[in-house]
């Protein structure tokens, strides 16, 4: 025979558990709907990679990129030091999270922690923008000659970047 109290409690517990599961599923689904900054940045670096790889040696191309102003694009040549480990011994172009003007370093370490890199066969990669070079010089820690690569900060709308591809080098640049 079923005891009155036990039946009542069991039903309540089952309903509560199902209710919580339902709530959890809803929250998980909503989280899935609203997350995605990283996915967007992956799409952006894939688009940059696709457009660079489409160029023939000696070609120049301009294309539009839309990012997020909390992220920037940078790159390293194969023999350069301080690259993110995920580039191994190759040249790479990365999209990394950080605000250079807020003191975040343009370093391989920060890209290793929060960034997406794409590897290129060309030995030399230069990524530069007038804006960042000026900011780096302003710190007084570097000379103009000392800097090969800097980075390109995204804006809240579109930026047009220029890519020059040679047999053994890629130069990605942005001018205000």
């Amino acid at each position, binding site marked *: 025979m079923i005891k009155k109290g036990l039946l009542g409690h069991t039903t309540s517990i089952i309903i509560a558990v*199902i209710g919580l599961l339902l709530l959890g599923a809803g929250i998980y689904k909503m989280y899935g709907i609203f997350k995605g900054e990283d996915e967007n940045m992956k799409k952006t670096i894939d688009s940059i990679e696709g457009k660079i790889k489409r160029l023939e040696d000696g070609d120049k191309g301009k294309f539009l990129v839309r990012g997020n102003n909390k992220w920037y694009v940078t790159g390293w040549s194969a023999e350069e030091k301080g690259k993110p480990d995920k580039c191994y011994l190759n040249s790479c172009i990365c999209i990394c999270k950080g605000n250079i003007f807020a003191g975040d370093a343009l370093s391989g370490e920060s890209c290793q922690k929060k960034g997406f890199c794409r590897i290129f066969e060309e030995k030399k990669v230069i990524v530069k923008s007038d804006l960042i070079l000026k900011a780096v010089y302003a710190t007084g820690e570097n000379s103009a000659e000392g800097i090969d690569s800097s980075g390109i900060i995204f804006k*809240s709308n579109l930026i047009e970047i220029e890519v020059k591809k040679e047999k053994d080098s890629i130069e990605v640049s942005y001018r205000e």
Partner: protein
Amino acid sequence: MDKKGELTSTQIVSITIGILALITMLFALTLIKFGEYTDEELCKLSVLGRAHAADSIQGSLPLKCSTKKICLTRGKGDCSENFAGEEIEKIKLSADDTKAARLIEEVSAREMYNCWSMMGEGKIDLFGKYATSRGLEVTDSTCLICSRVAIDKGISEDVIKKVDIHRYMKEELVPQSKLTYIQTFTDKVSGAYPSVDRAAYENEANSLREGDSLSGNGREIALLFMQIKATKASEVLSNLGKDVFLIAAGGYFVNLGAKGVAGVLVGKAIRFILLPVAIGTAPAAALNAYSGQITATGYCGEFSTNDEKAKEGCSIVQAMPYDANRINNFCKSIEGNP
């Protein structure tokens, strides 16, 4: 008699209610879609989420609207000049030039309508709180690029010359509707394009600076949704009316607001259609290309918003050449997924 171990009527009612609640919850569970949402579903959900969210969290809810990339092609072409490295939707055009042109018209008009429809026909305040959360003024324009449509280089100029999107929008019905595109965009009030003060238009078009001429191959357009808030919608209208980039992109406000020539008053709000006028003046010659053909449509009036300071503004769906200068001048910031 209440025998020991038997259920009382109160307990039976409680258990019945419990079981009914359980069934209701299980039914609700089946309504939650655990599979993948399509991009359009995700976008609509996030638009609704943003629109109905409390002020305090509205700014932290991103719009999950991805820019759709459509390549209109014949055969093997994949619009790689425009879309290399990006996921695209290919639409194959007929070998017959006239049929191909009709399909280009259809896709372009449909994408414009979809953008308008997904964004709540411009009546929802989507960017107000988002803008302030990003340090922007609410009066700055914020955009979302709904789609980019490109015509593959393999499609001849002869096909493009046959494309007449104005005619298409005037004569053809919106899918699953009894209204034409123009009627839909103007809330059934108008079935025709407004007349244009051609002299005034040419005057404005001629004022385009040299650098304002269209860049690119004229074969790619971006369909943008732009929203801007102000204390008075008329302020936005007067500023937009002078926007040289809007003119360059093919739209021109003609006597808007004064006599409603281009705009249609619906209650206190204005629905309008902007149209490009094909003219032969040098800087504006490119307006006749595909990228300069499409009209814009918009809504100016009160938004559904809690922000009492700036509850009026304008929303526009505008086709523009996919060009950084042009788009950045129209959009202070861009939201959504690239």
